[in-house]
């Protein structure tokens, strides 16, 4: 018990350091700019929350983007009515995400398996269509909900000029550029707000995984029949997991709006719901770190791979003879730019086929391989690597 507690503390510490050093670590990969860093952190939170439902209980929700969307709308409304401070916006987004997931979860959890997935998908599409058309007074339909100069903002309405989301005066778009080892590293206030919350969320999920409640959720996934003959009512357990993950999604949606105060209906579309499923499975469902890794990978592809064009490819393959270069460029250009989905799809297929446990399983296999080889060479057992959960 004590050793696993220590391992958890180390895991949390390493995670925190990696997240906080994100701008430095990711700068060489061209991913060190604030907008993308914020997305890494926010979608990391989204995926951590999704994993509490899917990873632990095995209930596959295809409608989590709905909670992300309502979180964004809730946050923007707080900006419009109350203040441009992000705290009330984020808190309200979590509450609304929780209430909305309570409603949808209560109905959807009457079924399990594929029927549950379809129900959540139907609710999410319904929410999307409502936000797009019927609820225009609340959501501003197609245009999306934005903050404007003549919003009431009863707490800081007097402040003149363009409204910026802030944390007690610290502007979310505030960025300090520092040169480290010749790289321009951007430290952005908004990213650090997201990063702090991401670390908090990771800690909550770590505690939840290790708690008796987490054990019960794993039991739901394993054998619901035995659970009810053991005197446990499965429904409230699944509903609690659903609401917790809905609150995480609401929080992520709120943060998206806090970084960039606008909310559109497309955030609720089924593709967005599918994306978080991909993130979780790609990284490793039911593992602690996997969902964050998966979220990072997908957002990286979406933003970096999609930006590669033929010019970049020409440079990349420039060492080849010219005719060959053109041929290779025309083939590889299918996989970048607009075609980044193709690359993502291929990676997804490879991982699901060969590493059903996701990237985390890959990492731990690699770890074992290295340890075993180390044993063979030195003839002495090395300490096993901490489970890379």
């Amino acid at each position, binding site marked *: 018990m004590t050793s696993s507690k220590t391992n958890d503390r180390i895991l949390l510490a390493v995670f925190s350091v990696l997240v906080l050093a994100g701008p430095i670590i990711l700068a060489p990969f061209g991913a060190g700019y604030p907008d993308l860093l914020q997305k890494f952190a926010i979608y990391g939170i989204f995926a951590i929350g999704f994993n509490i439902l899917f990873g632990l209980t095995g209930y596959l929700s295809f409608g989590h983007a709905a909670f992300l969307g309502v979180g964004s709308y809730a946050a923007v409304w707080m900006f419009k009515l109350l203040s441009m401070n992000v705290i009330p916006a984020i808190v309200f987004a979590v509450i609304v995400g929780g209430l909305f997931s309570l409603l949808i979860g209560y109905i959807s959890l009457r079924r399990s398996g594929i029927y549950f997935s379809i129900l959540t998908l139907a609710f999410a599409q319904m929410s999307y269509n409502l936000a797009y058309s019927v609820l225009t007074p609340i959501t501003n339909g197609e245009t999306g909900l934005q903050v404007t100069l003549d919003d009431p903002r009863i707490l800081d309405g007097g402040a003149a000029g363009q409204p910026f989301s802030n944390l007690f005066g610290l502007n979310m778009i505030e960025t300090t550029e520092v040169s480290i080892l010749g790289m321009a590293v951007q430290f952005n206030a908004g990213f650090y707000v997201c990063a702090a919350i991401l670390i908090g969320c990771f800690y909550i999920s770590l505690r939840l995984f290790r708690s008796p409640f987490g054990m019960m959720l794993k039991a739901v996934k394993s054998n619901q029949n*035995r659970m009810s003959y053991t005197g446990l009512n499965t429904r409230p357990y699944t509903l609690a997991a659903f609401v917790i993950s809905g609150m995480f999604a609401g929080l992520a949606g709120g943060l998206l709006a806090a970084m960039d105060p606008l909310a559109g209906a497309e955030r609720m579309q089924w593709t967005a719901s599918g994306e978080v499923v991909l993130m979780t499975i790609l990284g490793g469902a039911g593992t602690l770190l996997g969902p964050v890794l998966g979220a990072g990978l997908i957002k990286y592809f979406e933003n970096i791979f999609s930006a590669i064009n033929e010019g970049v490819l020409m440079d990349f393959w420039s060492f080849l003879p010219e005719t060959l270069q053109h041929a290779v460029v025309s083939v590889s250009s299918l996989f970048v730019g607009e075609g980044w989905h193709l690359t993502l799809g291929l990676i997804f297929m490879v991982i699901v086929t060969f590493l059903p446990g996701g990237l985390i399983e890959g990492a731990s296999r690699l770890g074992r391989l290295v340890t075993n080889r180390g044993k063979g060479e030195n003839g002495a057992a090395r300490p096993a690597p901490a489970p890379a959960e």
Partner: protein
Amino acid sequence: MGTPILQVQNVNKRFGGLKALDDVNLTVMENTVHAIIGPNGAGKSTLLNTFVGRLIPDTGTVTFDGQSLIGRKPHEINQLGVSRVFQTPEIFEDLTVAENVMIPAFAKRDGAFRLHGWESMSREAEIRDRALACLEDVNMADRRAMLAKNLSRGDKRRLEMAMCLVQEPKLLLLDEPTAGMSRADTNNTIDLLKQIVAAKSITLAVIEHDMHVVFSLADRISVLAQGHVIVEDAPQHIKGNPKVQEAYLGGAHL
């Protein structure tokens, strides 16, 4: 033996045209071992299912410890003090052996639902100790860190038994606890059940095909045939009973 703990009165259950239970009456006395035997298709498992909330009888009453079980959900019935061992072990395959036993212990302590996301180390250690003590009772303490799915079939059964015993049920229902076991394993199971009965104040209701098991354990036997209880008596009177021989052997006398 004094008070009845489980009373089944005039229970009927139809599946379409098949009359699975035909006016069944049965009384299980507290702190006894009551065996329910009968040929295949006699309605033994159907009867057991009406005790745990899996099936609701068409008519009739099932009373446990003074409370009606009809219409209660399985988890509610378990919380009243009824645990069940299944014919094919129902365990949490993806969890460790220790966790498998801790979950019922939590259920016993905290009820049907509790959002215990934060549990103090000492409180959790209490549950863990109780679980390990129960695993000790079934000689499985050395396997506590294994995943339950990697256990042998016999060990899965013993684990399921430990999962039920950790809850200290008033009534333990066993559905063919020795099916598919070797003679040695069967004898171990008989010894284990005898120990349990001797050590704890517990009532067992056992469905069993193996007459060796039935006659070594039971204080009382009910014979079910075609959904009807044809005889209920002490073991020594069952063996020679012509009705029982007829039910089992179709009238051909030995």
